[in-house]
């Protein structure tokens, strides 16, 4: 026994690895001492960390990263929205007076108080406009299904606008038939060649429609293909391009809608 005392810890370690029950029964030292050594050793190995501390560290770190990312995204949206808000005159958009597809007058005043999504196109468009209008229909439903717009009565549903770049062929009657295939909420706007040229200029839309074309003539029109998100004050917020899926676009729109506090 006396010779055994010196390398006790060593023996304990060896037996611990094998299964310590028989040794413990004969060992002179209480099992608590062994436990303390083990604890001390592990303490020595891991330093002042325990799994609890590690978990706390990781979870608080993750929470901070999450919060930081959220704030960063919010600030970025705010920056995009603020950058678009010009001092005084807005950089994109502005007053206009056009006719909707029912022949009723529609002005920029009718856009106030709600978010609107503006798209420029023309009904005789071969492929891109119909594709984009189908996407717009999906966006409208996705956005308006959000509790941000449906539950809170402070903001009415999104107002989708289709403004023609081809006023000679796109009369209110043509737009009515054309748009009914896409979404009942879309308002189609048309006007005289001068009025359309003016609004295209205000929205920075490339406008190439020839003046004074005959009815029934077959031609195409060049135009920009962006969705313009306008805020309830009629100011431009962000442009949504073709690369965005309807889901992405709805997410972008709803993020801006969620930021709206006024």
């Amino acid at each position, binding site marked *: 026994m006396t010779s055994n005392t010196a390398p006790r810890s060593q023996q304990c370690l060896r037996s611990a690895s094998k299964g310590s029950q028989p040794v413990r029964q004969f060992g002179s030292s209480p099992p608590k001492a062994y436990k303390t050594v083990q604890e001390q050793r592990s303490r020595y190995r891991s330093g002042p960390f325990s799994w609890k501390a590690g978990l706390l560290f990781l979870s608080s770190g993750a929470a901070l990263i999450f919060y930081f990312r959220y704030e960063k995204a919010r600030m970025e949206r705010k920056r995009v929205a603020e950058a678009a808000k010009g001092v005084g005159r807005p950089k994109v958009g502005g007053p206009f007076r056009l006719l909707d597809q029912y022949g009723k007058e529609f002005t920029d005043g009718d856009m106030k108080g709600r978010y609107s999504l503006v798209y420029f196109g*023309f009904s005789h468009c*071969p492929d891109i406009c*119909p594709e984009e209008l189908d996407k717009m229909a999906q966006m409208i439903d996705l956005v308006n299904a959000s509790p941000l717009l449906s539950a809170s009565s402070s903001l009415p549903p999104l107002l989708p606008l289709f403004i023609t770049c081809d006023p000679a062929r796109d*009369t209110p*009657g043509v737009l009515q*038939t054309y748009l009914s295939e896409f979404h009942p909420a879309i308002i189609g706007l048309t006007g005289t060649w001068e009025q359309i040229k003016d609004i295209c200029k205000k929205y920075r839309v490339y406008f190439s429609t020839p003046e004074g074309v005959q009815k*029934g003539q077959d031609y195409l029109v*060049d135009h920009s293909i962006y969705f313009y998100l306008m805020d309830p004050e009629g100011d431009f917020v962000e442009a949504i391009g073709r*690369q965005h899926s309807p889901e992405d676009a709805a997410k972008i729109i709803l993020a801006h809608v969620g930021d709206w506090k006024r």
Partner: protein
Amino acid sequence: MGLFSSSPASPPPPKISSDGAPIAPDRTQRAKCWESRDAYFGCLDRNNIVDSITEKDKAEKACSVEGRGFESNCASSWVTYFKKRRVMEYQRNKTLERLKAEGAQEMPGQIGPPGPGQRP
């Protein structure tokens, strides 16, 4: 093609809207047009023709039936537009392939939308 193909192929005249203007092709007419376009371009692919405007004779010889179907289902401005777009897309793909072969790295994310002036 022959003597009998000279009859002009064009889509049926458009319906007239309530205010007297011709209505643009509707969804089914568009789908028909795109379908016949794809059939025509499929034929061009099989015959290794990219530009059916500059290689008009060759295209007419090889794909006269599909070509007639294309022209009878789409407005002539659409036909020209689709033919030009086919060439443009071919060149774009070739450029991308060439760049890849040269070792260009694809950047994450999408190439931006076509700039202003891009035909719709």
